Structure formats: structure tokens, C-alpha cells
């Protein structure tokens, strides 16, 4: 609310929830090229394995805010563990209604104070939260005609 009234960020573009389960478990090797050339000081430039920097919690909820006539942009990140909930911003930015419902549906993040927190994209009786990292992709194995 401070941001909205005092800084003038009156426009909420997006609420994106990211699940970081399994972040950093895989070593990442390889050279990261940039147009400016190799930064020999960086460990990854030599092709060594490097783990990404660890994150504070499992979930991050990103609020993307814009100040419409002026054009400044800010992104607010809230870190949550599985099971924690965060206050809903529907009173402040009404557009958050469906964004928060989607974050709840896809990731299982509960927003306190949301007037209608129900599933929006999946069916109402769906179990599980599809975009979590421990939810399987689903689908079918592909059948090839040569196998029959």
C-alpha cells in the first residue's frame, strides 16, 4: 500500500510464483558466453562445474509493479516455505484477484484475505498443484508404429 500510494506504483502487472525445489542440486558446468567475451575471473569461464547460489526458501512470489504514467518498474519478491501463506493484495490492486488464484492453483500458495481463493485453471476437484517441481509432467509415453 505504501508502494501504491506514496511511490505511485498503481499498476500490478503480474504475480509470478516460482518453486525452487531442487535448485542447486545439479551442478552446472559449461561456459557462459557473453557478447563482451569471457570473464576469466568467473569460475564458470573455465568450464568448471558451478552450483547456482542457494535461495532463502522454497517459494518466491514475485510482484511486478509499474507506475503507469511515469514508467518506473519494481519487482517485489516474497519468500515462503511450503505451507506458509502471504497476505493478499486484492484490496490494494484488484487485478491481483485472478493472479493470486492462479498462484494458488498452480503452486499451492495460500493468500490470506483473498475473497475467493479457488481453483481457476484446473478443474475444481483437481488434486495437487501442477507447477510444483515435485508434480510429474504427466502425459503418455509415445507409441511408435515400429513397436507394435
Amino acid at each position, binding site marked *: 500500500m505504501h508502494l501504491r500510494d506514496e511511490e505511485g506504483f498503481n499498476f500490478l502487472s503480474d504475480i509470478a510464483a516460482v518453486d525452487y525445489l531442487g535448485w542447486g542440486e545439479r551442478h552446472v558446468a559449461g*561456459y*557462459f558466453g557473453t*557478447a563482451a567475451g569471457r570473464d576469466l575471473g568467473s569460475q564458470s569461464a573455465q568450464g568448471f562445474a558451478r552450483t547456482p547460489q542457494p535461495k532463502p526458501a522454497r517459494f518466491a512470489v514475485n510482484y511486478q509493479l509499474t507506475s503507469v504514467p511515469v*514508467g518506473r518498474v519494481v519487482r517485489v519478491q516474497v519468500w515462503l516455505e511450503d505451507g506458509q501463506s502471504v497476505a493478499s493484495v486484492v484490496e*490494494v490492486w484488484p487485478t491481483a484477484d*485472478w493472479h493470486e488464484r492462479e498462484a494458488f492453483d*498452480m503452486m499451492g500458495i495460500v493468500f490470506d484475505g483473498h475473497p*475467493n481463493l479457488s481453483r481457476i485453471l484446473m478443474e475444481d476437484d483437481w488434486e495437487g498443484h501442477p507447477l510444483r517441481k515435485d508434480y510429474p509432467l504427466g502425459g503418455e509415453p509415445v507409441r511408435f508404429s515400429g513397436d507394435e
Partner: protein
Amino acid sequence: MAVTEPRRIYTGSRIPAPIPTVLQVPSDVTDPEDILQVNFGPNHPSTHGVLRLVVDLSGERVVGLRAVIGYLHTGFEKNMEQKTWWKAITYPERIDYVSFQNNELVFVLAIEKLLELEVPPKATWMRMLLCELNRIHSHLVFLGTSALELGAISMFWYCFRERDLVLDLSELATGMRMHTRYFQAGGLAEDVPRGFEAECRKFVEWMPKALDDYEAILSRNEIWLERTRGIGLLSAEDAIALGQSGPVLRASGVDWDLRRDRPYLAYPALDFNVPVYPNGDVYDRYLVRMDEMRESVRIIEQCLDGMPEGPWIADDRKVVLPPRHELHTSMESLIHHFKIVTEGYRVPEGEVYVTVESPRGEMGCLVVSDGGPKPWRVKFRAPSYVALEATATCMRDSLVADMIAIVGSLDSVMGEVDR
């Protein structure tokens, strides 16, 4: 920090409370038995895809409204996490299937921002050109289908005639009519073919005359004015509070266009106007889109005039495939080619949120990378998703017939809404 009294959003605003996106039947309605709940189901004659509206009607007036979406949920974001960066570029196009180039653009721009890759100017200008062509395509589909729903059936055929011209150009440049997959991280997948400029100039000459035709049919037509003026009002504050962007926001009087205010590609080098209309009704949204089509034609002409020569894709071999003739001579190129094709290039760790002015509004893409060959998380901010949140506000005090006009004017593409 002192807690200040929250500014009451709902005073003076037409946004329904407590749920901003649901219009609830007021408790003081005279005869509750008279309310008829009608389901405008996922399959309905108005060609807007699979949107379901549960509407409470008192006679012809809409007193309650609830939108149910999710009938086209595809799990794009989950699928993209399983593919390498290269392969994942095919997915965003199908999100908003009417303005496909813009979706590709936003994802590719996000990858390039993380990679800090410099794109050659020819690729930038060609991307701008194709995106503006796409804008014309999308507005033509909007116009054709909205007019069809409101009864101006012959507009459908006129608009789709021009749409076929746009798709011919797209096929000439990229090989596919829709879902072209032409943008690559670093530039374009192939060079611009030789005859493209001549064909595009023919189109640029023809299009303003077609637009004049459309205006002659619709803009001063008494029936069109009756059906669209004063319908679906959305004030400027409500539009901003509801997160609207694009033509819906500009028709409510807010002068905000991402191409000019948060520029990307080479838009600062171009000269174009941004149409803004004050009333916030269906007619103004129609006018905004008509004017945007004219502006897009001007932009395309400027792109053709100003198209620089040069390479069409960046030179960084770690990300971009080397040219084929080099594969015969250089071992290093062969290895690069092999690594890129089999394993995929790697994008450095980071998070970035990129926005693009798609024909429907602000299309945003949040990309989180862990440094590996596959995206960790991709989130698309679809403008139609947010536009549908405004249905309850726009449809306050409206009739059933106006509902069709309003849903058409919000121009929502369900692929984008449901992702």
C-alpha cells in the same frame, strides 16, 4: 511507519466488491425468483474460444456475472521447463495464437537479456516489422469476429481477405503462415528472402485503402454506433486498478504504450502516434484498434525504408549455430554446432521480466534460469487474462446483447488466458 488509512478503491469505482471479478446479484433485488441463471458455456457461437460466463439475468439486464476459465489450460509453463532453451521457443507462440510473433518475441528477448547478447540491427528491425504485421493480423481478426457477432457479417470476409495478405507475407518471410518460429536467441533463424520487400510494399500501399473501407462500413454506421457507444464503460482509474493494458487502457483515456514508454527493439528510432480515446466504451476500443492498424502500417513502411543491411543473427558461437559453410572447414565450429544441437546452449543464472506491447496489451515473461540448458521457470503474463478480470466491471448495468459486444471488445484470446 505509520499505517495510513487505505484509500478506498471501491468508492467511486465500478469495480464490484468484495470480489473484484465477480458481479454478485444485489441482495436488494425485488424478486429473487425472477433471476434466471444462464450459462454461456464454453462452446458458443461467438467465436472467442472457450470462455464460460455464468450470468444471472433479470429480464434482459445482467445482474450477476462470473467468468469460468481453464477450458484450454495447456500446461505451457510446465512443458517448457522440460525442453531446452532452443526447443522451448516453439511453445510461447501458441499461447496467444492470434498474435504469435509477440509471444515469441517476449520469450526471446528475455533469453537475450539473460545472455546479454547483442542482436544485430537487421534482426531487430525485421522483428519489429513482423510484430507490427502481427498487430495488424490480430486487429483484423478482432474486427472480423466482433463485427460478425454484432451482426455486420460481411466484415468477416473483408477482414479475413486482408488477413490472408498478411499471412502470405509471413509465409514468404518465414515459411509458415502462423506460428512461424522465426525468432531465435540472437536474431532471426534465416535471412530475409529477396522478394519480401517488394511484396511488403504492395501490402503497405493496399492496406490503408482497406482500412478506409472498414471505416466507411462501420465507423459512422448508425447500428454500429447504437450497439457500441456507451456500452461497457471502464474508467481510467478502474482500468489501472484492474491492470488493463493495451487498447483497453488507451480507450479509457490513459496514455500508456510500452513501445513508447518502456521501449524495446528499435522503437525509439521510429515515429508513430499512440491513439488514446477518453470514453472507455466499446466504440472507443474499436477506434483505438482501427487507428493502431493505421499506425502499424506507417511503422512497417518506416521499417522497410530503414532496414539496415548486415547479419541476421548474432555472432556468439556458444549460442548461435555457425553458418553451414564453416562446418566443412573449422573443427571448432563443428564442436559448437554439436554442443548446441545436442545439449543446448546454457543461459546464465538469473531472473528477468520482459514486457512487450502485444496487440492485446502488456505481454510479460518472467524467466528464471539456473544456468542450465533448460529453463527453470517461465511465467507469462497474458493481457487477456487480465482483460477478462474486467468483465464484471464492464458489464455492470448492461443488457444481454451488450455482453457479446463487451466480450468482443476486450479481445481476449483463450489460449492466452488459460495458458
